[in-house]
Structures are given as structure tokens and as C-alpha cells.
């Protein structure tokens, strides 16, 4: 009889947002941070890219990067680290927001 250990489906870990929502307002606060946590297997250096998109998935006359200073980026998790080198920082461009809207920040494998 032999015992076989299957390889993990997620050898580089599982990533999720620590908080699920954030409110930015030209009345304040105009900046906010989203923290991503890594759980499970922490081995290895992993870079995760992220992007802010409208929640409805539709095309809009005003793109997200017209009112968000940084609408995409990359965060890196070091070897054996559950937290990234930096959090995702979102900042409103002054006087660029014309109406209430919602965007979602998605993680994508880099």
C-alpha cells in the first residue's frame, strides 16, 4: 500500500481582501487603502496585479482613471509573508468626480 500526497491546488497561497468595501469622497476622505492577505501556503514570492473597474462592467463615458489617481497596480508578497509590501492605495483626483459611482478592485494573477 502506498500513500500519495497530492500537490496543493494553491502552492503560492490564497489571496483575499481584508475589507470588502471602501468609501472615497471629495468631501473627505479622498484616499483609502485596501489590504490584501495571503493565507495557506506562504512559500515563494508572488506578485498580484489589481485593477479598479466600474461594478456594472459596462463602458462609461468617464473612465475610472479619470477620477482615480492610480486605477491599477501590482503588490508583492515576499517569501513566507502573509502581507504585501504595500497596500492598495486609492486616491481621488480633485474635482474630477461628477456623480456617485461604484468601482470594484479586482485581483488578477500577475
Amino acid at each position, binding site marked *: 500500500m502506498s500513500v500519495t500526497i497530492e500537490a496543493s491546488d494553491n502552492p*503560492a497561497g490564497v489571496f483575499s481582501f481584508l*475589507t470588502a468595501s471602501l468609501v472615497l469622497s471629495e468631501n473627505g476622505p479622498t484616499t483609502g487603502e485596501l489590504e490584501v492577505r495571503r493565507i495557506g501556503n506562504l512559500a515563494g514570492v508572488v506578485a498580484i496585479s489589481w485593477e479598479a473597474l466600474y461594478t456594472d462592467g459596462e463602458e462609461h463615458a468617464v473612465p475610472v482613471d479619470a477620477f482615480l489617481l492610480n486605477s491599477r497596480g501590482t503588490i508583492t508578497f515576499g517569501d513566507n509573508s502573509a502581507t504585501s509590501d504595500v497596500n492598495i492605495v486609492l486616491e481621488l483626483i480633485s474635482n474630477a468626480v461628477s456623480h456617485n459611482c461604484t468601482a470594484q478592485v479586482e485581483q488578477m494573477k500577475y
Partner: protein
Amino acid sequence: MTPGVGFGVPVQAVVTVQPRIVSTFNLAFDNLTIVASTAQQVSLLIQRTDGLQTTAVVIYNTTQPRQPVAIGSLTFEPAQPQIHFTQIQTTVTFNPGDVSHLIEIPIISVPDSPAAFFVQISAVGQ
């Protein structure tokens, strides 16, 4: 998706973005001196900052000072409404994108000595 990395719950964070709804208004000059013998009106610029994407209404009016007005080393007697300057109260609307509006106050007659009146502005219902 490249094997090796999994995404837990939540994989998306929702960001709600809200515009500034309050505009700030000011007159381009704190004090403005004109020579009434040659000027028939005073032109003043109302400037707006913040909330430029919204529609905002500003009330402006002229008033007579209750006492002489000192500006630097000079003193000005109160100008007389409807004699020296037009007493008015009216509004100007700032549409989305408007950063300034020019208003004009008619001058009626020349005072015997240097005189002053006030122009006040206030935002409506922000």
C-alpha cells in the same frame, strides 16, 4: 488562471466614490476702488472652487455700510443706495464647469467725497 495562486473571498472590494457637493465662492478682490466720474458700473468677478461638477446658485447684494469704512490709511463715508449706487439683490447660477461669473453693479452718481458700499455674496442651499 495560472495554477498556483488561489483567490479567496472576497476577491473584489467595492469602492464607492462620491463627488464634492459644496462649492466655495469668493470675490476676486477684497476691495475695489473706482472713479465714479468716469465709471458707470463696477464689474466684480465671483470665483468658485470645489464642487465644480455641480450646479450652484449665489445670491449677491449691495448694502450701505453703517459707518465709515477704513481701508489702509484712507477712510470712506458710506455711499448712499439709489443715489450713488444701485441697491440690488439678485442671483447668479454656476452651471457644472463654471469657475467664475462677472457681475455688474451700476453706479448712479458721483459722491461729494470718497464713499464706499459693500457687495456681499452667499451660496444658496448647498
